[in-house]
């Protein structure tokens, strides 16, 4: 049997739930018996080292502004050349081609615009409306996925090559487009590694 290559993946490290994703990815590599390394990514040099990237939850305006100058253009290039990316919550917003806020309407914020989808920020309302709910994600099997929604957006529509992976009461909450994955909920806060495993699988496909 051919030895599996070493997997180097990164978590964008400007703001938000960075350590949670690092921990989830480390557990994933361990469970999959893979050699690898999880890096935090704040500079171009760090970005060049990784073969897959997580854009964590946090405040999309903050992460967007901080990455706009240097990293964003390179992330877009890497995505175009096939690097797998998982974006959660704020990460999904940054990856969407179109974004608006449920209450404020149009918003001006730097985006990566990687996926054919329209995201609605703060769709469910404020923190008081944050919730947990089990999700059915056909791609990941029968077992419900513990969905943690924190001031979550939803995806109003997808087009082109983007495909809805899961819905919650009729709203799209997870999307895939080629090797790009995005969820409005927080797999890094759930005791379930299936989405992180799927990301690693996509990374292995590119090696």
């Amino acid at each position: 049997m051919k030895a599996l290559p070493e997997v180097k993946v990164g978590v964008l490290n400007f703001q938000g739930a960075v350590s949670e994703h690092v921990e989830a990815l480390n557990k994933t590599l361990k469970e999959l018996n893979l050699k690898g390394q999880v890096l935090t990514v704040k500079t171009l040099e760090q970005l060049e080292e990784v073969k897959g990237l997580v854009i964590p939850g946090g405040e999309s305006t903050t992460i967007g502004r901080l990455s706009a100058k240097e990293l964003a253009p390179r992330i877009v290039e890497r995505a175009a050349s096939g690097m797998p990316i998982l974006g959660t919550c704020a990460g999904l917003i940054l990856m969407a081609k179109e974004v608006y806020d449920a209450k404020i309407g149009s918003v001006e914020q730097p985006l990566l615009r990687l996926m054919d989808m329209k995201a609605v920020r703060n769709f469910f309302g404020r923190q008081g409306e944050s919730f947990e709910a089990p999700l059915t994600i056909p791609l990941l099997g029968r077992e419900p996925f513990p969905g943690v929604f924190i001031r979550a957006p939803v995806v109003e529509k997808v087009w082109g090559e983007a495909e809805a992976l899961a819905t919650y009461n009729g709203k799209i909450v997870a999307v895939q487009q080629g090797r790009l994955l995005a969820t409005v909920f927080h797999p890094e806060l759930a005791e379930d590694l299936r989405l992180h495993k799927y990301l690693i699988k996509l990374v292995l496909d590119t090696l």
Partner: protein
Amino acid sequence: MNGLGVIVLERIIVKPSEKVEPVYGTVTVKRGFARMQKGGVIMDVTNVEQAQTAEEAGAVAVMVLDKLPADVRKAGGVARMCDVKIIEEVMDHITIPVMAKCRIGHYMEARVLEAIGVDMIDESEVLTPADEHHHINKWEFKVPFVNGARNLGEALRRIAEGASMIRTKGEAGTGNVAEAVRHVKEVMGRIRELQSMNDEQLLDVARELKVPFELVKETALLGRLPVVNFAAGGIATPADAALMMHLGCDGVFVGSGIFKSDDPLERAKAIVMATTFWDDPETVAEACKMVVEKKSMSGVDIKTLKPEELMQTRGQ
């Protein structure tokens, strides 16, 4: 076998009619909210214009107050919850989370803030305490709380009462970072001590601090507080913010430091930059160049304050 087999790639069929019932206000979503703030700067504001400046500068949230802590200090008298109308106005104009302060032990101010939908409540010593002996039982609320702490005992007691986030108390409204430094070192030094203790010793600590043994044990195992831990109280410059990150804080609150300065937008941007890139002195230097020291808020030496003027001794 590398375990990749657990990913079922054969899609199952789901009936779209299944309605899922959500559960609100769980510990995961309350503590999770605080986790999403990590690495960020939360800024004190008193009106919509300041809130928009904060958002533009890259703040992760704003804290709406009636008066900035420096002015609370100057004005004296009883400091209470902010005008509800102002908080609502701010909520209507920005997309980032909005927090507000209630007095220590004031259940009804907290209920009012929860009812209008603020994203997090700061049960704060900057306001005049409503209850000299008790904090709010925060488990009763769906909205998450942040509390101030000077040491590990205060931090763990607040967590035991249901706080989802801790911040150092520092000494608000002074523009002097020394107390925040003292408080974070107190907390972290004590946690390092816990890490070398056996259960018997941890039990002694639990008795001494008047907190559940399980919480002390969890803290010892994690090597950190089980909730997000921010710096607050006296942070006035980009270098102050970077210092607090260097000391291991998860993020910073900046109170009077921004809007009591003469260059708020530039300073807010510079503090965000210094907080994110705290481990890169060249970028912190660049952030420092964005502000003029002459325009920093004028500070107060804590040694000149009378004991009754200290805010940090409120609510232990």
